[in-house]
């Protein structure tokens, strides 16, 4: 049943001093879709690729807000990430309550990393199956931390986790020298380009499957999704070395192929007012309503229909 006799639990070292269960937990991160984070000397940007389990299902959230100064992107078991982000939220509130100041990013990540470590040393527990990119801004500036189930925490200038994230890291390693002085806009584009590099040939970044989050100097942690992502994808297109994103966007699990493009373009114009009265605008609203229904359905019935394992890693 097991690959060897040293990988059954977290309390057994292999003869070379490894703990296989922890290494397997690290593999769980790679089952999740990719997330990328990068820092300039003023901001941190997170971008992530969302998945939906089925066409009518909603896309799973990849980015979570902890507080005004902090948030995270996850890859791996989303329920584990929820536990950890709830913990971070309590810590953040406690710091605000006791000391009237935001939680330092370093202290925040150390706290969840210590939690993760204890799960690697006691029998009867499993390590967390999720990797996190924690982005935050505090007195010492912007920070990007990578959290792993092993209890490891490392601060990076740029990092990527999740499926095919090596491609994103390669991009980051080639370009990280320029990040420091980047504007927020350039930083987001860098993030999106890195994220795009993780996609398989037949996939594209769309307004549905892409999440963007920013935090930094005078910038509260903000998540951009759906409509708000569109202008950024357009900017990505105009700076793109892989031309013609828009056409391929249609291939993304959308029934109304022809219209998607129109809707997308329409949204760019109507990012300010969603209450647009023109005909394409109402299509947008209808589309949203449909999405909501899909959400409701998937939460009510989804678990019966699909193998939960397919949906656990995000």
């Amino acid at each position, binding site marked *: 049943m097991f690959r060897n006799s040293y990988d059954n639990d977290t309390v057994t070292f292999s003869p070379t001093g490894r703990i296989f269960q922890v290494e397997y937990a690290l593999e769980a991160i790679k089952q999740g879709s990719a997330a990328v984070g990068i820092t300039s000397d003023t901001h941190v940007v997170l971008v992530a690729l969302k998945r939906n389990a089925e066409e009518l299902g909603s896309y799973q959230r990849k980015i979570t807000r902890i507080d005004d100064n902090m948030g995270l992107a996850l890859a791996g078991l989303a329920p584990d990430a929820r536990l950890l982000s709830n913990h971070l939220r309590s810590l953040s509130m406690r710091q605000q*309550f006791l000391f009237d100041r935001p939680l330092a990013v370093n202290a925040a990540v150390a706290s969840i990393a210590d939690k993760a470590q204890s799960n690697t040393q006691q029998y009867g527990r499993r390590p967390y199956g999720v990797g996190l990119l924690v982005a935050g801004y505090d007195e010492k500036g912007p920070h990007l931390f990578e959290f792993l189930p092993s209890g490891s925490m490392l601060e990076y200038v740029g990092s990527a986790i999740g499926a095919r994230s090596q491609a994103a890291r390669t991009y980051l390693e080639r370009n990280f020298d320029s990040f420091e002085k980047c504007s927020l806009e350039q930083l987001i584009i860098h993030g999106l380009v890195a994220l795009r590099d993780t996609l398989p040939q037949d996939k594209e970044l769309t307004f549905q499957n892409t999440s963007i989050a920013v935090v930094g100097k005078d910038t509260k942690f903000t998540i951009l999704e759906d409509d708000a992502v569109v202008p950024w994808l357009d900017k990505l297109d105009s700076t793109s070395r892989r031309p013609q994103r828009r056409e391929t966007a249609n291939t993304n699990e959308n029934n109304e192929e022809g219209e998607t493009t129109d809707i997308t373009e329409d949204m760019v114009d109507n990012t300010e007012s969603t209450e647009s009265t023109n005909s394409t605008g109402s299509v947008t609203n209808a589309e949203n309503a449909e999405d909501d229904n899909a959400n409701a359905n998937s939460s009510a019935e989804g678990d019966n229909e699909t193998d939960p394992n397919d949906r656990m890693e995000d």
Partner: protein
Amino acid sequence: MQHTQEKWGRPRDDVYGPYDASYLNSEPRTQTLQPTVTGTSVIGMKFNNGVVIAADNLASYGSLRRFIDQERLIKVGSETVVGVGGDVSDLQTIEEIMEGLEISESYDEPAQSLTAPNIHSYLQRIMYKRRSKLDPLWNALVIGGFKNDEPYLAFIDLLGTTYTAPAVASGFGSYLAIPILRKLVDREGDQQNVSKEQAVDAIKEAMKVLFYRDGRALDKYSLAILSKKDGKPDVEILKDVRVENQNWSMAKQIKGFGTQDE
């Protein structure tokens, strides 16, 4: 079966004897109901570039001048001073809490700065928690420091009540010192027109009046001057400062108490 509710679950009187309710008449459990060894007023005011705080060195045992070298100004972190009035053993507890705070702050690398608003918030939570346990730390606290380069001055009492003001004082000081300090800083913002020297003089004057009129005051005190030099905080704590130019000639004029010759 006992049919009245208040008897349910009670041992039978005929077997065990009547219930002994005497404990119900005993005194309730109590925590500190009064302070023992105490320090008197702490006073502080802002000036255009910082804060001045003073507290004398007396620890009284009732009306006895028990200890005359009690330091009541605590430096916390690199840019904050906490002045403590009230119970001296509770002052020592606060001192230990503050040292513990400094150590935990040093754990993080790089460490966040620990500023007066942070310490003020933390102490307020502690004071309120203790009063809610009906076991207060019997103190009045004055916290001086900086918030975003601006002078910061706050007050907390044993109930956890708190406020910030350009001039604060505890105990007798709130009657005797505040009017003197408010001549210079009546409202928030007035400190802009007050120099360090003016503030120190006003505090010294207030300490003098307090020594004259507060029977639990001493003419030896500590004076903390917190200011910003080139944007960096500078904390100077002067010890063994004396109330100078004392004039007791009016003492003979005071009548109406004590043993006096007509």
